[in-house]
């Protein structure tokens, strides 16, 4: 059994939590298991070093990097490819518990270890990592069986209520991928332009022709880094009064001004960020919203991110009260602009993160970057 990316994020605490769960299950079931644990967290010093040597490049769309962002990252993980997983498989462990890993690597490691064609192995793995998402009806939480041989691979859902079709499997190459004809992995790319899909029985699809283009060394792995931007507090409310709905922008700016005036001299404006979301108007698309129809009711979320949670809560309290009582032209609802559904009205979120890193790093030694430890659990 291969587990990864442990706890989704695949950092050290996530791997450790998953390991504790495994230990508990092994003990409860009276199993003795050899467990190969592969960590994927990377020290910021290692990344900083690589950055200074010019070995780090941004992924498409990722913003520029600087040293401050690297050292202030709360956590950095690298997405392991198949090499560390194959190394763990060769130990003969019963369970492999991997930190952050490329999704496809988890399924490609076994066929690659047995010498199957990497183009077929990675393509099959890329479809399998989403389970029955490639089936009809689709479901990410149901099982898919993949069988590989030297000429191609075959996929079929294990649930008899689902089938795979050539179109459903081919269409899966679109899912969450920027390019439907190319799968990019640390080991190389799979070219899907010559791939052929055919129905071989009611539920099974045969795939062939996926072509592997190896990445010449040096290999590059993807880094994901998170950095704390602040702490969040929000309030949720509703507007029903037509004049309030027509004047939301005026109410927002009035509330911001009032809050700013009260906070001046106590907090610097860099210590907090205020955002108004008007659901029913344009909260999802913002200025990209093409529809200009006027709703009869609007959901209002006031979102404050502060340098500390105390700051976020204090600023939110002030902005909320200022919004509730903001005057505007033509106001009839002089006792309050919003319906508050909850008491207390405010909620605290958690730390708010941003991506400090979404970059590729050249690497020469996977073994030290993704260290392997074998332990025996249960018994």
């Amino acid at each position: 059994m291969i587990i990864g990316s442990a706890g989704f994020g695949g950092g050290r605490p996530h791997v450790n939590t998953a390991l504790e769960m495994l230990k508990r299950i092994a003990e409860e079931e009276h199993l003795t298991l050899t467990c190969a644990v592969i960590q994927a967290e990377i020290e910021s010093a290692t990344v900083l070093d690589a950055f200074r040597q010019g070995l780090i490049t941004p992924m498409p769309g990722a913003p520029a990097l600087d040293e401050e962002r690297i050292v202030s990252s709360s956590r950095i993980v690298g997405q392991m490819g198949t090499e560390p997983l194959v190394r763990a498989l060769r130990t003969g462990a019963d369970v492999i518990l991997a930190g952050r890993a490329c999704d496809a690597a988890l399924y490609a490691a076994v066929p690659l270890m047995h010498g199957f064609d990497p183009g077929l192995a990675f393509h099959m793995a890329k479809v399998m990592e989403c389970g029955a998402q490639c089936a009809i009806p689709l479901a990410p939480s149901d099982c898919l069986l993949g069988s590989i041989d030297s000429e191609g691979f075959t996929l079929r859902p294990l649930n008899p209520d689902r089938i795979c079709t050539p179109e459903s499997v081919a269409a899966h190459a679109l899912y969450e991928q920027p390019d439907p004809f190319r799968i990019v992995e640390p080991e190389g790319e799979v070219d899907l332009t010559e791939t052929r899909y055919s129905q071989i029985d009611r539920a099974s699809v045969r795939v062939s022709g996926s072509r592997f283009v190896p990445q010449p060394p040096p290999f590059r792995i993807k880094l994901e880094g998170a950095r704390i931007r602040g702490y969040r507090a929000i309030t949720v409310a509703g507007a029903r009064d037509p004049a309030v709905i027509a004047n939301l922008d005026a109410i927002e700016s009035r509330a911001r001004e009032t809050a700013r005036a009260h906070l001046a001299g106590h907090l610097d404006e860099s210590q907090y960020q205020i955002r108004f979301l008007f659901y029913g108007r344009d909260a999802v698309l913002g200025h990209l919203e093409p529809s200009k129809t006027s709703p009869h009711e609007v959901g209002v979320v006031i979102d404050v991110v502060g340098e500390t949670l105390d700051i976020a809560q204090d600023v939110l309290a002030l902005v909320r009260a200022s919004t509730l009582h903001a005057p505007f032209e033509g106001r009839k609802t002089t006792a309050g602009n919003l319906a508050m559904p909850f008491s207390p009205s405010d909620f605290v979120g958690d730390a708010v993160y941003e991506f400090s890193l979404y970059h590729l790093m050249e690497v020469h030694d996977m073994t030290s970057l993704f260290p392997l430890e074998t332990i025996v659990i249960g018994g």
Partner: protein
Amino acid sequence: MTSLYDLAVVLRSKNAGPFLMTIDVMLPDRASFLRVATSPAFSVETISSAYGVDAREVRVIPVEEINTVKVTLPRMVGERGSGSPGDTDVYGAQHHGPLIDIEVE
């Protein structure tokens, strides 16, 4: 004229990593695929203007075999990637909105 929303059987958006979004327009048959794929109303120019991004950053990829047109473009929300302050759609699942009312001949 038909709206893209009425024509498509699947019209979906999703993150493709934390800094890109991808939109899949799956059409029911080859005729409607060709209507969309060749429509001047569904071009790099019209899409980049609907999303307020540089046309050079937008890719429109026809996938003829499955009657689908894919659009890949930068993520417009979030100050520094998915989930960062200012994001309104952490998984990018509702950002096909600006394309819904595009009218295709």
